[in-house]
């Protein structure tokens, strides 16, 4: 333990120097010059049919999409969030874009366009099999994780370009593939679970996604299986003026376990782009899912031009007894973030945890939080939210804790901390707590603080420059959440924390 701690500390340091060498700005802002095939502009029934056809989908899938599309036409964009959302013209978007040479889906990574692989390697995502994730391994000789692998599914604009370690996962019984593939290969599983956690018409953006989602990831962990490696999906928006609508479905069957990571980036463009994803997690008896996100979509420039509008519906359904889910998110990107990863705790003794860091700088806006719906007996939930605002940004935590009438002896603990940098930004906390059972207990703690002048002076008197000092203090503020992330992601996240706050002081 002792050594781990020190190693981690040392990593913090390494992180800071990496950040320095990165030299600020959005480092994923490049775009890949690749011939792209678009669906016609706008959204109508033909577009929905086209997407379905491009993916070579069975009839039932198209019906499902059309049903969603017809519902969506009647829905209104929600306005309750504390966000100023410029009007979005849904007819002025492309709903499908794919690299032109991907008409035939590559059967293996060897067939993938080298330019795409290059893009991912530039992003630091290893798509070549056998390649271990670089990082802490060399730092810690005692670490047994030397052979640790991460299987990656990469989604480029509207399509999945490839999934690594498929064979190895298959031998463990794990299914990890793009959702378009799953619809064809595992229709029974998809039919059974798709839309069972986030129904078609759950909300405006989820409904839109149901109609036009083009790809995404699918995971099935069979009974009693502990997934032998971490699974990861990497989303990249490249094409201009194109919305990305991916859909992720993860099923952890009885007594299984999986840790899943998700990363996102997009090129730096003047036009805002829409991203509306849906993630559904199904967790059966005694199973556990850890879902970690590092969201770093292009945030727009310092004047608020461009950036991704990120409207995401994520929900975990703890159906089984003793089922467990943990959401961890680090949200540093996007011009607008609207996202509430939730836990429905149906099974008795089930538990849900939500750890979140949301950083907004310049003109960014975030309205994010979670919902913990306690239905089963003895259910537990824990919320740790760290919001950081700098520049002229607005950051809102919005959370619901609901304990149902039959949810005896259930517990919630919520800790909600906000940190302000400068005096032009805002932090808001909007907790809703509804308890309908007298044996339940809900605790809520909230703090708001500013980066303390004395802390800065102390760091600087020891020789640490002001920006490094802020990064250090903010990383300290977020520690609890950073520690909930898998190691590789924690390092990436720390870098992001520092980069996102560059230029916020002085």
């Amino acid at each position, binding site marked *: 333990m002792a050594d781990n701690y020190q190693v981690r500390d040392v990593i913090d340091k390494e992180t800071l120097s990496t950040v320095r060498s990165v030299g600020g700005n959005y480092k994923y802002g490049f775009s890949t010059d690749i011939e792209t095939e678009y669906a016609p502009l706008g959204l109508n029934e033909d577009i929905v049919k086209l997407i379905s056809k491009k993916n070579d989908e069975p009839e039932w899938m198209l019906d499902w999409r059309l049903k969603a599309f017809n519902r969506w036409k009647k829905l209104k964009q929600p306005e309750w969030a504390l966000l100023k959302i410029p009007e979005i013209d849904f007819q002025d978007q492309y709903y499908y874009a794919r690299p032109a040479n991907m008409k035939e889906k590559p059967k293996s990574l060897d067939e993938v366009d080298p330019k795409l692989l290059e893009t991912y390697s530039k992003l630091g995502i290893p798509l070549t099999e056998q390649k271990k994730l670089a990082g802490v391994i060399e730092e810690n000789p005692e670490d047994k994780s030397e052979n640790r692998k991460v299987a990656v599914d990469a989604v480029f604009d509207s399509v999945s370009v490839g999934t690594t370690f498929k064979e190895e996962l298959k031998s463990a019984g794990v299914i990890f593939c793009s959702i378009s593939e799953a619809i064809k290969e595992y229709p029974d599983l998809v039919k059974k679970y798709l839309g069972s956690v986030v129904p078609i018409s759950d909300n405006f953006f989820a409904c839109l996604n149901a109609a036009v989602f083009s790809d995404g990831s699918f995971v099935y962990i069979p009974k009693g299986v502990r997934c032998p490696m971490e699974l990861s999906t990497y989303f990249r928006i490249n094409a201009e003026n194109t919305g990305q609508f991916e859909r992720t479905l993860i099923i952890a069957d009885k007594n299984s376990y999986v840790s899943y990571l998700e990363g996102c980036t997009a090129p730096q463009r003047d036009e805002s782009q829409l991203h509306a994803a849906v993630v559904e997690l199904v967790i059966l008896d005694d199973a556990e899912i850890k879902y970690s996100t590092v969201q770093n979509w292009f945030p727009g420039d310092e004047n608020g031009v461009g950036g991704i509008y990120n409207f995401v519906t994520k929900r975990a359904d703890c159906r089984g007894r003793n089922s467990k889910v943990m959401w961890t998110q680090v949200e540093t990107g996007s011009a607008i973030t609207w996202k509430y990863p939730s836990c429905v705790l149906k099974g008795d003794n089930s538990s849900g945890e939500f750890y979140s860091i949301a950083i907004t700088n310049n003109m960014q806006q975030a309205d994010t939080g979670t919902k913990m719906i306690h239905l089963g007996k003895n259910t537990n939930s824990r919320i740790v939210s760290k919001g950081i605002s700098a520049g002229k940004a607005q950051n809102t935590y919005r959370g619901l804790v609901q304990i149902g009438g039959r949810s005896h002896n259930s517990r919630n603990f919520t800790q909600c901390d906000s940190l302000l940098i400068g005096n032009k930004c805002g932090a808001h906390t909007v907790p809703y707590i509804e308890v309908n059972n007298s044996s339940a207990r809900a605790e809520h703690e909230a703090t708001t603080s500013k980066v303390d002048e004395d802390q800065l002076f102390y760091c*600087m008197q020891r020789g640490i420059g002001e920006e490094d000092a802020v990064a250090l203090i903010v990383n300290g503020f977020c520690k609890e959440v950073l520690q909930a992330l898998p190691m590789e992601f924690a390092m990436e996240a720390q870098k992001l924390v520092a980069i996102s706050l560059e230029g916020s002081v002085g």
Partner: protein
Amino acid sequence: MLNIDDLKVSLEEEEKQIIKGLSLSINPGEVHAIMGPNGSGKSTLSSVLAGKDGYIIDSGTVNFDGSDLLEAEVEARAALGIFMAFQYPIEIPGVGNMNFLRTALNSQRKTRGQEELNAADFLKLVRGIAKDLEISDEMMKRPVNVGASGGEKKRNEILQMCLLEPRFVILDETDSGLDVDAMKLVSKGVNNFSSSSRSFLVITHYQRLLNYIVPDFVHIMVDGRIVKTGDKSLALHVEETGYKDFLQLGKGKH
């Protein structure tokens, strides 16, 4: 090494002059003590030397090794070799001591154009110093100063000093809140660290610290000025009679 010439300093928030014409010259290897009653400007002096915000320099100069100290940024002064042991060391939640120390050390090295210390060498160095100061591994793992007792915090300051190897050290009321054992430990750390090329400015209310860290010069500060300078016997005199003899001296100079 350090030359303060007729320094006058006011608070930024309220137009109130705190230091009213102070001159002091400190050579390498010397230990100077500044004593004085509450509100005499002792802590303002240390803050101004370290570069804290919130003060206006009305007039005067501070020269450190030939350069204008007041022009340098806080972190640049640290890299020049100025270290201040805080009266109330600051807590930084979530930031591990090790991380903090290594960041500080390598930031200074980088500023000075030296190579950064690698993880292994750094750990070895820190562990050696911590052992001398009887700082436990457990304490080193904690976030900076969080949950530490007054004595632990002060020892932590001395640890930082030994690690960063400054040439000019300000001990700002380091004895406050220390019991005798802790004071001996802290003093031992300081004395082991002292050398012919290092200087100390010891700011204190009481004489007792000076039994352990023996000064070459003792200055009595009253109302923003040094009103009397002597050797260590001056501190003993203060211990016996208090500051009342000197209060008049302060007023007389207006």
